[in-house]
């Protein structure tokens, strides 16, 4: 942990503090004020984008715990998000349970499904595990498409508004508070998880699972815990997504979306708390720019080309960004941010 010049830690409490100096606190409170007054002056469109980013951060944080900290690559994350989304939609919409209960059960159901598909991780890793999570993705989507009595199948499923007590979250602004609140809690949880016994066990497993086992870490238990936590957060994100969109269809949870989540944590910086935040913001904003401005512009400019050609731009750019980040900056935006902070603290005497 690099500190500003002249700041020293004299106690463990200081060493463990997330916000160490008064400036940290001031910046944090400033950010919170800025964030939670945003619905007052942001347009509905940008609030919607922010809500999607918040939900994405929750899911990406889950994937980061599973893949970034514990090293178990999952290419089926969108499938687990779908489990949470449909669980929450079915519980609140069809059984009439209150939203908070639906939210938590969505997380639990997704976590349990994730654990089942995580069982092979005890015996296999790397590519084998990646393939079995792809298989999980396809099996989950197939079940969703055909288990019509619960999920609505291909027709889709409309979802009631989220409500806690008498408060109904029926506008983007109200949902913003709900989603950002849970996102903040998730980030706080992830930050702290990384420095507990469990988090350190995850890192040990990622770096060398055999050595970790020799050191007395129960591999099976911790890998399943990682799958549970990762997919629990995916489920929470899914539930929020369902109540945010008010409508569900399996198309929202394609393999491409799963790959995008892996791309997000790579771009953001794998195995850091900041990574998923940077990655989610970067990818979702890039998506907005590409689909809202670049694609219509290209379609309008090059009318002699066959219709719809510009829809290929978005996946091309995403793929290119993932490849370039892996080659040029494998530690992601979070690492760049660290470098920037270090340079900023020492400026103008960088020696």
């Amino acid at each position, binding site marked *: 942990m690099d500190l500003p010049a002249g700041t020293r830690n004299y106690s463990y409490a200081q060493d463990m503090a997330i916000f160490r100096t008064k400036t940290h606190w001031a910046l944090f409170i400033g950010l919170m004020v800025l964030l939670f007054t945003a619905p007052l002056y942001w347009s509905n469109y940008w609030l919607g984008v922010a809500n999607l980013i918040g939900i994405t951060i929750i899911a990406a944080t889950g994937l980061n715990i599973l*893949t970034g900290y514990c*090293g178990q*690559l999952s*290419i089926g994350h969108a499938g687990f998000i779908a489990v949470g989304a449909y669980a929450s939609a079915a519980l609140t919409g069809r059984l009439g349970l209150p939203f908070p209960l639906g939210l938590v059960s969505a997380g639990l159901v997704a976590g349990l499904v994730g654990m089942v*598909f995580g*069982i*092979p991780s005890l*015996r*296999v890793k*790397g*590519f*084998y595990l*990646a*393939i*079995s999570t*792809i*298989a*999980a993705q*396809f*099996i989950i989507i*197939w079940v969703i*498409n*055909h*288990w019509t009595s619960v999920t609505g199948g291909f027709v889709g499923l409309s979802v009631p508004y989220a409500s806690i007590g008498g408060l109904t979250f029926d506008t983007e602004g109200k949902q913003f508070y709900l989603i950002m609140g849970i996102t903040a809690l998730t980030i706080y949880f992830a930050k702290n998880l990384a420095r507990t016994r469990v988090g350190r066990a995850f890192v040990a497993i990622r770096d*060398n699972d*055999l*050595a970790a086992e*020799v050191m007395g870490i129960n591999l099976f238990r911790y890998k399943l815990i990682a799958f549970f936590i990762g997919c629990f957060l995916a489920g929470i994100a899914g539930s929020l997504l369902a109540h945010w969109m008010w409508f569900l269809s399996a198309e929202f949870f394609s393999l*491409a979306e799963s*790959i*995008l989540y*892996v*791309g997000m944590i*790579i771009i953001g910086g*794998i195995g850091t708390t900041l990574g998923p935040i940077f990655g989610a913001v970067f990818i979702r904003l890039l998506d907005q720019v590409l689909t809202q401005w670049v694609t219509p512009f290209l379609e309008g400019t090059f009318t002699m080309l*066959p*219709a*719809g*050609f*510009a*829809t*290929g*731009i*978005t*996946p*091309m*750019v*995403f*793929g*290119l*960004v*993932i*490849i370039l980040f*892996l*080659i040029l900056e*494998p530690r992601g935006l979070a690492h760049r941010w660290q470098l920037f902070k270090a340079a900023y603290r020492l400026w103008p005497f960088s020696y």
Partner: protein
Amino acid sequence: MAELLQFVITGITVGMVYALIALGFVLVWKSSGVANLALGQMVLLSSWFTYGMLVQAGLPLWLGFVLVLIFALALGWVVERFVLRPLIAQPILSLITVTLGLAYFIQGLVVFIWPWSVDALPRLFPTEPVHVGPAVVPQQYLWAAGISLALFALLSLFFRYHKMGIAMRATADDQMAVQASGIPVTRIFSRSWMFAAVLAAIGGVLMSSIGGITFGLVDTGLKAFSVVILGGLDSFLGAIIAGPIIGLAENLGGGYLTPLTWPGVREVIPFIIIIIVMFIRPYGLFGEERIERI
């Protein structure tokens, strides 16, 4: 009975094409330890390129196919040189993810150039159905299987007798030893990617001559993954045997399980097989179980 025979024949023949595509995967995995998750997209891109040559440019069949082969070789070379080469000796996580990025890119490229996303190749094989006992089998299937078999034979001869083939097998066996004896390992990587791209292209042409060019070809690549998982990642023989098994399971399951479960069960059978193999025998039928030391 006729129905059963028909399922068996189509299953085995389609399975052979899967095996062909899977061989490309095994080749790359064995020589360079990279899991190529962009396989399905490479199949898709080559099929569309064939379409572009034969239909859009209106070239004669033989010239079109020569160009497709050249294109596939170039594709494999470019992918290895510019995407995988900078990542040599990176963790497996990066190697898998980079092919995912590649998959995303190629899929976008296909939509970019051919946005209408469904089309058919011109007729490559005679279409009159063939009667095998009581079953009626479309002739394309038999052609596809025949071509795949011929390619298996060619490939095994290549790996047995050709200098490059022997070098490739040696690289798969022990990279350090190969380097020490003066074989340029990066060139082997490059060649194995070019081979994989050619196999993907041939598999793609065969598949799309049967079912047309759709995004379903990407699923063909995914089925090839279930072939390699079942056969064992590092086994050529495993891929050749597991291919027809997957094809059979898919067709028989699709034929007989659909009334019992939900429709579309055919599409997930390869994935269910993956999960079952993972639980029972994670290294596949013929795969080598790696013993790790610290």
